[in-house]
């Protein structure tokens, strides 16, 4: 099926070359980082994780969110998602690859990365994160490829793949739970030491991931003959709505615990992020942008009449995605480090090389996604959907 990725129109190749050039620039930036050390980033002794780990955290959520289309389709036989599942699974593959790359570029000694396997350490959450992420990648490649291959041959998928699908459904929440445990089990970092961290992660993932999937489905529909289905998009919109509300509710719970208990350590990070602490307020505008986007998203999503308008749904999804991207891909990580264990404040802002490397990892993700979607759509365009489709192909 891979051969389908090398036949494409002008627009396809322009897009691929655009991504490749971003990857090239980022690769040069990475060589610079590799040569000079992580000092070329904005990270410090106090804020020792930054944009890279934030992006990793956010993208694990995107990867896990594939389950939001896989579960209704396979467990509840929700046929409307038939054409969306492959897009969800392939998005998960691209997201997991980005996660792994973000971990890799964050390492001080990347050439020693195999030490994690050579010296397996079951008491470290990082060890489990490696296991669940590689397992999830394997499952999605296996399932996506097999099901799509069967579809191309216009035969039902082989029976043996079903247990793997069930496993992948159970596996998806596990990757994000383990990622939350990276943070939630650390003593002395009050901002992260919260029992609902994993639940918050899952809620934001199941809002952010599907909102990206909606946007992708709309792009696919616009530029190809393949239509993932209007109703499928609407159902996803409903999922985004509920999960976004749950996510904001969970965030509210964190606020309540911190500010009603009035324990300084529990309040400090929130104060730093949303109003600034002791005159340090670099992240305040960014966090408020995230909050405003969340309000806009919810205002648009919560009314079915508005949500049914696809252009407004698209706006809501973009707002949801960026709101969560800021909140989880940036604020959550930095907030945990400010103030530091001495209750001093060191601020963090990514540097240019750091931003270029981040952009390059996203470009690699989108390149993988483009190629996988190209293959999936080429197969789908060849297959007639007359059973469930609203717009028939061929």
């Amino acid at each position, binding site marked *: 099926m891979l051969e389908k990725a090398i036949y494409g129109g002008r627009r396809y190749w322009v897009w691929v070359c655009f991504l490749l050039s971003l990857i090239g620039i980022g690769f040069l930036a990475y060589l610079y980082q590799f040569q*000079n*050390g992580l000092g070329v980033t904005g990270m410090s002794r106090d804020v020792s994780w930054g944009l890279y780990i934030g992006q990793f955290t956010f993208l694990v959520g995107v990867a896990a969110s594939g389950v939001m289309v896989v579960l209704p389709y396979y467990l509840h036989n929700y046929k409307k998602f038939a054409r969306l599942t492959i897009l969800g699974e392939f998005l998960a593959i691209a997201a997991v690859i980005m996660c792994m790359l973000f971990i890799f570029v964050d390492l001080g000694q990347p050439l*020693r990365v195999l030490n994690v396997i*050579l010296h397996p350490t079951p008491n470290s959450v990082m060890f489990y994160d490696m296991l669940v992420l590689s397992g999830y990648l394997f499952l999605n490649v296996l399932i996506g490829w097999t099901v799509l291959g069967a579809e191309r041959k216009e035969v039902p998928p082989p029976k043996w793949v079903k247990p793997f699908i069930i496993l992948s459904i159970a596996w998806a929440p596990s990757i994000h739970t383990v990622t939350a445990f990276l943070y939630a089990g650390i003593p002395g970092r009050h901002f992260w030491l919260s029992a609902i961290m994993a639940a918050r992660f899952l809620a934001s993932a199941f809002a952010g991931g599907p909102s990206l999937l909606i946007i992708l489905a709309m792009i696919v529909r616009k530029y190809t003959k393949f239509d993932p289905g209007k109703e499928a998009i609407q159902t996803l919109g409903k999922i985004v709505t509920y999960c976004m509300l749950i996510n904001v509710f969970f965030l509210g719970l964190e606020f309540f615990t911190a500010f009603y208990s009035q324990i300084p350590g529990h309040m400090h990070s929130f104060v730093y992020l949303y109003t600034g602490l002791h005159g340090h307020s670099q992240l305040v505008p960014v966090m408020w942008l995230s909050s405003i986007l969340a309000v806009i998203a919810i205002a648009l999503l919560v009314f079915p009449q508005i949500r049914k308008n696809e252009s407004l749904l698209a706006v809501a999804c973009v707002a949801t995605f960026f709101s969560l991207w800021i909140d989880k891909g940036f604020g959550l990580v930095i907030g945990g480090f400010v103030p530091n*264990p001495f209750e001093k404040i060191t601020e963090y802002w990514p540097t240019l090389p750091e931003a270029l490397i981040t952009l390059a990892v996203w470009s690699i993700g989108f390149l993988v996604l483009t190629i996988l979607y190209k293959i999936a759509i080429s197969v789908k365009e060849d297959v007639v959907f007359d059973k469930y489709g609203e717009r028939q192909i061929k």
Partner: protein
Amino acid sequence: MSMNRREFIKIAGLSSILGIGGVAGVSALKNSVEASQTSKNPEALTAKRWAMVVDMSKFASEEDFQPCIDACHRAHNVPHITDNPKHEIKWIWPETYEHAFPGNEDEYRAEKYQHMPFLMLCNHCENPPCVRVCPTQATFKRKSDGIVMMDMHRCIGCRFCMAGCPYGARSFNYKNPRPFIDESKKNPEFPTRMKGVVEKCTLCYERLAKGLEPACVEAAKEVAAKKGTTPGLIFGDLEDPNSEVRKILSERFTIRRKPELGTGPSVYYII
């Protein structure tokens, strides 16, 4: 036996997967055995659990504590990074009361306590979170004497330990530290580090093995000898009821940093 290409690739693939898994399994077993010297130096200082008491009455000004810092940083080739405070490497350094013991501030506490230079170093916790989170056991707790050790050759530089340490005791080499080491003060017997690894106080395990006390403790003794007082840093075995450390703990009121986190810090402060 004949096999076609497909079968060969299958077997080759499967055996390489098993091979990697096997290596992981064997090394998991291997890791349960601690590295040890073949014959121990009979003069080596040993303990079941090393601990330190910092007597703040002996640390009034910079001339009291700076020799301890200098001795440590010189003994371990700790780079002196001044161009960017974000990249600082510190093994032992002073903090004021409010920063050393956050959450215990009191605006009415006597001024002299507020500005005391509390010496910060790795607490060599009984239950160290940094060891718990390290994915490669590059940082580990030595079973014989409780020192939280660093294997800078194994460290992958993920900095999980820095997030895990509630005492801010760990530093990461954000750049090559070697140009920042004063050549004239270099200790050729202790390795310098490369960029991309985490480091911290290791309670001078290399000096203990030679029968010497930690560099900071030795420096504190020298300062005390000059002034004709008792030293400000006292070092000993926490599990030995007759050790000097235990004697002090049974007589004086001491505090530890963030004991409520359950880490069991081994550094005590007398105020």
